């Protein structure tokens, strides 16, 4: 039995111009939270215990920042620039919490493309319910 993997979009440097945008919509499930806890070894109750998180002023268990970065990975590796993109850096400022099951999106916009190196600077914005969850930047090398 073979498994068909989702196919990454292919954008070449000539396709990448400032203003080009892509977006990934997602929500984080309870199973993904559990899997990330085991993967990372981070069992902080703010992420694993709804009641504890509520006691600290949140609406429930807070989605791991690492899972939000995982969605940035999907955006870069599958959409912008897709198949030939390799991260060189990422920086995110978290502004608001995301909760399990809440609809969210991560948007990337090409800010600049280096003619000499092919390095692409992306502006990143994560949103849920029309509000910004996180903003940041990423540098992506397009492998030639």
């Amino acid at each position, binding site marked *: 039995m073979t498994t068909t993997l989702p196919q990454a979009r292919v954008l070449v440097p000539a396709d990448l111009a400032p203003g080009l945008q892509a977006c990934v919509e997602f929500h984080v499930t309870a199973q993904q939270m559990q899997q990330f806890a085991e993967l990372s070894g981070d069992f902080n109750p703010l992420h694993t215990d709804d009641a504890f998180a509520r006691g600290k002023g949140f609406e429930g268990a807070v989605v791991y920042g690492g899972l939000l970065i995982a969605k940035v990975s999907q955006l870069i590796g599958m959409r912008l620039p897709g198949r030939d993109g*390799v991260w*060189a850096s990422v920086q995110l400022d978290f502004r608001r919490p995301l909760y399990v099951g809440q609809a969210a999106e991560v948007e990337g916009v090409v800010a600049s493309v*280096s*003619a*000499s*190196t*092919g*390095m692409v600077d992306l502006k990143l914005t994560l949103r849920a319910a029309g509000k910004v969850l996180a903003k940041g930047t990423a540098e992506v*090398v397009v492998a030639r």
Partner: protein
Amino acid sequence: MNNNDLYVELSAIFHDVFDDESIVVTPQLTADDVDEWDSLSHIRLVLAIERKFGLQFSAAEVSRLKNVGEFVALIRSKAA
């Protein structure tokens, strides 16, 4: 900026990009002389030099370079 000043500026960039204060930047220096000088650090180096000197190079200009001396000549030609 004279050549000495240029090499002082480049040395600071090399030390930062390759995280190695022992690198002596000379005109003859090549990627083969620096263990950490791989494709990604090369991109970092070019971008750092572009930012430091306010220049933009083309892919062709950068790919032709054989050593630091040629990079310095390129910087000088662009900054002229």
